[in-house]
């Protein structure tokens, strides 16, 4: 249940973010033509660094004539035919809204997980001190819920009949999940039987 709770909160966050994204108009230019050319002084014989020229133009106009020449015209004075073949122009596009939403979402999820990790490490042991240490129960199918868990497995869990209380159910699911993770940890970090 911890998973679904997490998933639900993530869902809300993502809905919220996407609303933000829709209402905040794209403030950033998402299309560009980028031309990389030598320094205009190249035509005068001295070799130098590359220069970058960026402009937002239509894809069909993404070439040296439309992007670079207007900016460097005074420097090369009629030797355009020599200069332009040395330029490389590329049309690029991006979606800055997607980037924003994705990056913020990643930051959110990581912070949520860190907070939850801190909670599990610090607070949870204090809260759960009274509860007895549950023994491990073999992983069952994700679909099979607690009700249909099959007997015969060692440590048939929870003889105490919990009332169909939401809080209890959540706690029960969380316990089940925790036991599974604990078993995974034992396999990998202690017994080294897997994923070495």
């Amino acid at each position, binding site marked *: 249940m911890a998973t679904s709770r997490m998933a639900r909160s993530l869902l809300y966050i993502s809905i919220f973010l996407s609303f933000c994204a829709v209402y905040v108009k794209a403030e*950033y*230019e998402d299309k*560009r033509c980028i031309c*990389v*050319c*030598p320094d205009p002084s*190249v*035509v005068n*014989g001295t*070799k130098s660094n*590359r*220069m970058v020229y*960026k402009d*937002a133009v239509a894809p069909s106009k993404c070439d040296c004539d439309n992007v670079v020449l207007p900016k460097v015209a005074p420097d090369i004075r009629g030797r355009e035919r*020599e200069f332009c073949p*040395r*330029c*490389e122009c590329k049309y*690029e*596009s*991006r*979606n*800055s809204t*997607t*980037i*924003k939403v*994705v*990056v*913020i979402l*990643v930051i959110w*999820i*990581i912070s949520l*997980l*860190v907070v939850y*990790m801190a909670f*599990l*490490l610090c607070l949870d042991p204090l809260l759960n001190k009274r509860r007895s240490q549950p023994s491990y129960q*073999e*992983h*069952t*199918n*994700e*679909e*099979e819920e607690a009700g*249909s868990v*099959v*007997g*015969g*497995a060692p440590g048939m869990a929870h003889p105490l009949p919990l009332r169909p209380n939401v809080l209890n159910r959540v706690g029960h699911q969380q316990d089940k*999940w925790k036991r599974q*993770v604990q078993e*995974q*940890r034992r396999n*990998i*970090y202690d017994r*080294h*039987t*897997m*994923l*070495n």
Partner: protein
Amino acid sequence: MESRPLTHRGAMNNPLMRPPNYQALSHPTTQQQQQQPSVRYQSSANGVQGKDEEEEEDPILDSPISYNTMESAPPSNQSYVSFAGGSVATNILDSEEQEFPGIGQYDDFHTIDWQRDVARDRMRHRHIIKKREDSIWDWIKSGHDAWSGWVCVFMVGVFAGAVAGTIDIGASWMSDLRFGICPEAFWFNQEQCCWSSNETFYDRDNCSNWKSWPQVFGHEPEGAGAYIISYIFYILWSLLFASLAASLVMMFAPYACGSGIPEIKTILSGFIIRGYLGKWTLLIKSLGMVLAVSAGLSLGKEGPLVHVACCIGNILSYMFPKYGRNEAKKREILSAAAAVGVSVAFGAPIGGVLFSLEEASYYFPLKTLWRSFFAALVAAFVLRSINPFGNEHLVLFYVEYSKPWIFIELLPFILLGVIGGIIGTLFIKLNIKWCRYRKTSLLGQYPRLEVVAVTLLTAFVAYPNPYTRINTSNLIYLLFSQCGVANNDSLCDYQRNFTSANTAIEIAAAGPGVLKAVWLLALALVFKCVVTVFTFGLKVPCGLFIPSLAMGAIIGRLVGIGMEQLAYHNQDWAVFAGECSTGENCITPGLYAMVGAAAVLGGVTRMTVSLVVIMFELTGGVRYIVPLMAAVMASKWIGDAFGKEGIYDAHIILNGYPFLDSKEEFSHTTLAHDVMKPGKSESFYVLTQDSMSLEDVEQLLRETDHNGFPVVVSRQSQYLVGFVARRDLNIAINQAKKNTEGIVGDSTVLFTASVPSPWMGPPPLRLRKILDLAPITITDQTPMETVVDMFRKLGLRQTLVTHNGRLLGIITKKDVLRHIKFLESEDPESVLFN
């Protein structure tokens, strides 16, 4: 890899299917008892089609008396039909025998029985076809059933594409965070930050919008002080990301660590690892990948993407009971998901399908091939529309070559293949040695500390060298690309005359910049080789494709520069005369980098076809298939000569996963009798079909831990009736106790189709529904070669051994694997198995 004949029951030489022999075999003392079974055997001899009619014929044998107490059992509301049960709802027996939900599932770390699952699916399918005529709703349901496979892989494609796009964007932003930040829009990486700045000076995409860490703290952007601040920030961020990744993995989903491909291979071959493809693993692996790549560790996100795609496939398959409830069918979806993973990792849909076929999958029928094709297409389309790199391509290092290659270049290509094979083999050996050391020594006790230590070392050594400082994907892109006008790296510092007129870039002598770059690249190569050995196997999500590609690309680029200079200085040589004498640039070092990358990756993973297709989908040109093929083939030959298995198989062996490799041949002369359990002086546990009480059965279940029991006619005769799995037996007994009145310890457990007519005593427990009536049997003189072949091709879980028609013993997959290990003089106990 090959499709298995599904109608095995007709094809196999099952002694039980020859009723005429049966009479000759029958024991004189048990003649009476066997009269009835012999009829039943005949009916099951009708073969597969006879299966569901069988129970309809049986009422002839059935006694008129039915147990009213049994009818009080609540009707089961399951939506599928259990295996051995009849599929006909109007069946008379259905009212007497209850169905047991949950039959046909498996426990953790068990191997699946493909035959049984496929038979179960066939039953379910037949049931749906039969019911289709009944109502419009059933007709819709059958339609939904028919297309659910396609819908499922479509959804897998969509979700995997979206997740891959998220990971790409997140990783590119986070790895630039180590260098600086974009204050006006913190979610942009360096290139996005300078997207439309008007500055024209070219300095590695730098612009005033982007603030490096020294600038953020008000320091000058240049100078020794700035260098030290940048260095410290680089290390600190790397440590933060790596320790976060390791902690998240340890805390929430330990199964998310590593590459995942060895485990996926094992799972696809029919093994159950519960939780390995779960929700938490998906979430943590995706995030852990972003963090680990951003930490600058020598690892890639391509292998883990296969695992992530398989997690998505597994989670989505639960929405379709046809796949979610049937492990063998689920593996069809997982095979398609593996293809999707590679498709989005490399932007190579066809390469992904071939990867699934060649490397990942075990059972790959044409149907799965088409679904993989479709899913890979969908995923590539989704990723393309997200456009994570802003270059209209699915990978960062997409390059386009147009130059033809000349014949003499085949020699260096093959040389690259040889180098790749040697490096690959060395890498596998060293990495396995290190992983074994980690497994057995004290080092394994401190997984997080190890991650932090390796990160610290990597970041400390990587920063001074500009080629290791940048992201590995960027490095590969740099090495793959040609030296054009746009390339300002010192790698392209040739003594070219820029003033001459509009000619193409010509071949030129290397300038001092190239020489410096060659030295730095050589150092980077050594660093990458060493550090990757220690990185692969850390307890964070880590893939192997990108580091291997980087190593190979460095080697290839170095060889390419050498060839280029050789051609420049010896333009009069006959081999170069045709193409290079005109001053045209006839050698492309970028192409060498690509061939070298393919060679090393081929040496590490031992893939062939899929690797070549992936590489040429990366370049978008079919012209370079022959060079790539030559290099990959040479690499595979050299690799196979020095070490038998690729890195994934080596890790499967290291972990002892129960993977029955279909590549290797079994060439020993042992017989089934030598492998069979019980061996000498061991007892053999069987159930009898109509003479054991519930108490006896429960005692047997308590005292033994076998995963299944053969059912025989009687202890004296040992004639085989069928096979029942332990898990199914447990479920059935528990539910019968709960749901049926009158079941006590003394109740007889009946596996027969009918109840003998005057029945005394407590009501019997009828378990024919869970009985597998068509277990595969062999004789004790069958050569193990045949047995191993049967296990591989039919996907068996166990086979029963008979002698003179009587049950003698059992061979399980575990026994076969242990036997193979034993013959190869390895430790047979290392097989991970329950």
